């Protein structure tokens, strides 16, 4: 074979409006178009690109700077109390500003218990709301329900606190409390006097407050699961619940844990509403009816009346404790996510 056959001999070429010769001659004769001239004059754009990258790096670094700055200030301003009590501060039970005896343990305990209890109540509810909105809701109801959940997030926490004082506390004292004693008394979690204010009431109001965050984030994550995953499960003969469990929840579990973590973050730091209903008593309560105290509420309550350098320093160390609790809880959560998803990538093609 001397020469390769041209493609034209095998496949008839489509009918062109203008012959190829005419096209090339037209190109060479005329001036380049205005668009081409403009684009050719644009240079490499390298500087703009690098500048943009540097700017974004700066934004990212500011996060580290802010965290570091807060930590340093907290340590510096609490050095009196740090020197006086050392690490004992975090495990010591006792808060007596008059005699200068300070320990953070009741507050750490109150913060953790109220937040975890709030998660326990809020997460199933939030998942239920999200599942209903994404999978079961008639289309007409979708927007109103989504809007209402987001509206809940916009209510200031002091309003939640007021509502809790006037509505939740009486319900807790007269209806829910006696009910819990009657049916769950055997757990020994519901003992002692029930005044309506206490750890459980604080947890319930916290749960209501973090519900919208968790449910709207979870809803967005579930909506992002491709329909092909749902169809894959349905085609195998799944019921609606099985479709949701395998096709939706399983594919969005990492995102859901992230949403729960954001909710937990808010619960740990929430101050106003909790302060109004938790009872503000610095002890480690054994009953969920008993009044407690959280790290955030003790700072809010006592900062303005903190006389004496040690008292002030101890309150700032409480802030440091809250900072550390938040970091440790988040780290544990990350570890959990990592342990669950190790080996199985969550990519959805």
């Amino acid at each position, binding site marked *: 074979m001397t020469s390769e056959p041209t493609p034209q001999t095998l496949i008839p070429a489509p009918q062109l409006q203008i012959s190829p010769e005419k096209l090339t001659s037209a190109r060479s004769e005329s001036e380049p178009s205005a668009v081409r001239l403009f684009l050719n004059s644009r240079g490499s754009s390298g500087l703009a690109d690098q500048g943009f990258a540097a700017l974004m790096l700066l934004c990212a670094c500011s996060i580290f700077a802010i965290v570091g700055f807060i930590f340093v200030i907290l340590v510096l301003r609490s050095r009196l109390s740090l020197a006086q009590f050392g690490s004992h501060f975090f495990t010591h039970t006792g808060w007596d500003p008059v005699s200068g005896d300070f320990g953070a343990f009741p507050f750490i305990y109150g913060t953790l218990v109220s937040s975890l209890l709030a998660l326990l109540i809020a997460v199933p509810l939030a998942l239920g709301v999200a599942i209903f909105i994404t999978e079961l809701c008639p289309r007409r109801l979708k927007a109103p329900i989504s809007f209402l959940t987001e509206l809940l997030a916009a209510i200031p926490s002091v309003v939640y606190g007021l509502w809790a004082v006037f509505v939740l506390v009486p319900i807790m004292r007269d209806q829910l409390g006696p009910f819990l004693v009657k049916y769950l008394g055997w757990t020994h979690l519901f003992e002692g006097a029930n005044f309506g204010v206490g750890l459980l009431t604080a947890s319930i109001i916290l749960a209501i407050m973090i519900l919208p965050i968790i449910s709207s984030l979870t809803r967005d994550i579930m909506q992002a699961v491709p329909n092909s995953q749902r169809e894959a499960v*349905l085609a195998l003969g799944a019921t609606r619940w099985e479709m949701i469990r395998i096709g939706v929840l399983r594919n969005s579990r990492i995102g859901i844990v992230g949403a729960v973590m954001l909710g937990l973050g808010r619960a740990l730091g929430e101050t106003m509403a909790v302060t109004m209903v938790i009872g503000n008593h610095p002890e480690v309560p054994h009953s969920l009816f008993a009044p407690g105290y959280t790290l955030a509420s003790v700072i809010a309550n006592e900062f303005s009346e903190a006389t004496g350098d040690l008292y002030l320093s101890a309150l700032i160390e409480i802030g440091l404790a809250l900072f550390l609790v938040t970091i440790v809880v988040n780290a544990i959560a990350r570890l959990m996510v990592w342990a669950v998803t190790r080996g199985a*990538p969550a990519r959805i093609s």
Partner: protein
Amino acid sequence: MGVDILVESLNAWYGTTHTLQDINLRIPANHATALIGPSGCGKSTFVRCLNRMHETNPDARATGMVRMGEIDIYKDASPVEIRRRVGMVFQRPNPFPTMSIYDNVISGLKLNGFRNRRILDETVERSLKQAALWEEVKDDLKKKSGASLSGGQQQRLCIARAVAVDPEVLLMDEPASALDPVSTSKIEDLIFHLKAQYTIVIVTHNMQQAARVAENTGFFLSGKMVEFDSTHKIFTNPRDKRTEDYITGRFG
């Protein structure tokens, strides 16, 4: 073993669009039947009516009779029961990304509460062999996730998942349209072997594919079934002018 499918005056709508208009046909057991036609002609809707996936869309509606073996699927059974008998392979591979290859294959069995380890192991091997994927994945069945495979392998994994439940009917909605020629020919070989055991209905844009794998072919055009006959007849001597125009490439 596969079963016959008898379709009588099947109509389907999406909202107000009448996507399927009065379809009547008989799909014989243990044969492959191809459905061809231009995009939007209703052939995908038709297969989705055969396992009642059509109605998962809130706007969709279907009327008429579809009889699979002894069962009228719109009267005698729930959608869940129907889908346990009818396997489906979709246009785009959709393995479960958070499950291992092993778990992907048995997902249909596990879903329905089947727990016998020994039979599960056997099913995984049989299904992956039927889907011509066994040799490529047998060493990391439980190590690799379904999403870590290539596109062609993912589609064969989906076929394995569909045949693992030993269905009576296997529906394939353009199973090879997103795949390269090598994977496509593997899947065609597969269909050729699988039709001994299952009734296969395959939607395809590729007329050569229809000619290669199917005994019977139906031609759909704007929601109607124009012609249904043996594949040989459709491609050599169609009765309808529109079928002839389509298969000779004059439109569509």
